């Protein structure tokens, strides 16, 4: 039953896309521009984890086939991605007064800068984390599912992060302010919200999640300076499909786009001659089809 296998792979890939989508949507809703450097922020997370893990080693025990040191490296990846994004926001984006399109173009430039720096330091080749390559989990093989404990770690970690974000948004003062600002920035100021601080935290959270997504992308595939940027268009598709500006839409869109991507082999199984190399094209076709019916995305509100 290959379907279960595809679904399992979809879940893993979705987890990574969702982590990327949330930050893109959050920043769009609050800073009001499409941040093309978001994919490369993921790459920064991945390479930070590579460096950190290389420096600290395994630190003894392991969970789900991943040494404790790897989880420390994950936290470092999150922290550095967030830090780099915040510094970029303060030094470049915030002082700029160029409108949404100008910001978009600027962020493309920032993306190139991030990538160039990584490439100078690490070279353009693919590389891997120094973790043991695992065999698929035995008891799932009879069901046709070949996934490793690393894959389970990716899905569980993403679920924990997304749940954490949900709790933050719904039940904390900062989360309410973030939602208020995304809803109506002018009214947020008028209500006395220090919007600069909320913006800052939005960057921290969005880029931090992207950093985590990057670390997992490196674990799922390999690391290369282009890894985040290559995924960026798919993340945009997810965010737009879900309804840009809506965090929950980004989660849903990320899930759907990730699933569609990994369910592609079904087409060939049923004799439709569209190979998996066209996965992104199919995802975009579906996105366009949905937008024709719901121009603001699945969870987007009509304006």
């Amino acid at each position, binding site marked *: 039953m290959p379907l279960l296998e595809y679904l399992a792979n979809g879940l893993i890939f979705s987890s990574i896309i969702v982590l990327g989508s949330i930050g893109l949507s959050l920043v769009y809703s609050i800073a009001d521009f499409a941040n093309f450097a978001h994919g490369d922020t993921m790459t920064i997370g991945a390479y930070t984890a590579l460096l950190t893990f290389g420096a600290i080693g395994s630190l003894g025990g392991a969970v789900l086939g991943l040494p404790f040191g790897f989880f420390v490296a994950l936290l470092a990846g999150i922290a550095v991605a967030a830090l780099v994004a915040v510094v970029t926001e303060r030094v470049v984006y915030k002082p700029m007064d160029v409108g949404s399109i100008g910001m978009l173009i600027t962020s493309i430039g920032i993306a190139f800068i991030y990538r160039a720096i990584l490439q100078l330091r690490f070279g353009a080749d693919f590389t891997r984390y120094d973790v043991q390559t695992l065999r698929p989990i035995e008891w799932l093989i009879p069901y046709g599912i070949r996934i490793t404990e690393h894959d389970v770690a990716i899905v569980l970690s993403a679920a924990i992060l997304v749940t954490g974000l949900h709790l933050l948004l719904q039940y904390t003062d900062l989360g309410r302010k973030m939602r*208020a600002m995304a809803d109506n920035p002018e009214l947020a100021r008028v*209500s006395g919200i220090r919007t600069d601080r909320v913006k800052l935290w939005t960057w921290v959270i969005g880029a931090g999640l992207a950093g985590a997504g990057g670390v997992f992308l490196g674990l799922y595939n390999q690391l290369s300076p282009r890894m985040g940027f290559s995924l960026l268009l798919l993340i945009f598709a997810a965010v737009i499909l879900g309804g840009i500006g809506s965090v929950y839409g980004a989660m849903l869109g990320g899930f759907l786009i990730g699933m569609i991507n990994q369910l592609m082999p079904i087409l060939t199984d049923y004799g439709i001659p569209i190979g998996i190399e066209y996965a992104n094209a199919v995802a975009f076709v579906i996105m366009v089809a949905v937008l024709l019916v719901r121009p603001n995305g699945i969870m987007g509100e009509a304006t």
Partner: protein
Amino acid sequence: MSENRVLELADVDSGYGDVQVLTDLSLHVNENEIVCLIGPNGAGKSTVLKTAFGLLSPWTGSVTYHGDQIGGMAPEDIVREGIGYVPQTDNVFGSLTIDENLRMGGVARESGLDRVIGDLYDQFALLDERRKSKARTLSGGQRQVLAFARALVMEPDVLLIDEPSAGLAPNTADEVFEHVQAVNDLDTAILMVEQNAKKGLGISDRGYVLDQGTVRFEDAADGLLDNEEVSKLYLGA
């Protein structure tokens, strides 16, 4: 009527970008009174509120609150001084619940948030019944009430209200004006812009007629309603 001025704009020029809207404008609001700004479209009524609230900086002249200079301060700081502002449109957070809207109104409070919100629920029963509903599910009149309540969480000394009756059916508009009066009864002075000049002046103590960015007439509300020239030019009588 006490002559204790809560808010005063003196000789203010202001506008958007390079476009000047207000010219040498002076007006004030005393403690506990309702002041209505009327005048034709484009007269600069909303610009007065925006300048008073820091959404626009006065180019020249002064804006004072209880005698202290507030011109050029940011809205998030002016809120903390004790001035509330209710925009004309988009004046509630549609995707937030009513309770969350009120909490957002009180982010700058250091204490007593639950007490004030409790009091507001006592005063506005329709909000109390729907605490957990999203604000976007409210009708136009209900939204306006929520917008007032959000601004009242800070217990401001003066509330600036931009066209409370805009887009509302006549009956609903009357209800909203009643709420404006109820707010005023809580010792909150009100500076209100109103398109419906007769109704606006009808609940006000004093009024100003704005035209082309400056004050043309200023009088007690009754005086303006009885003024033939004002009636002919601005009240459509």
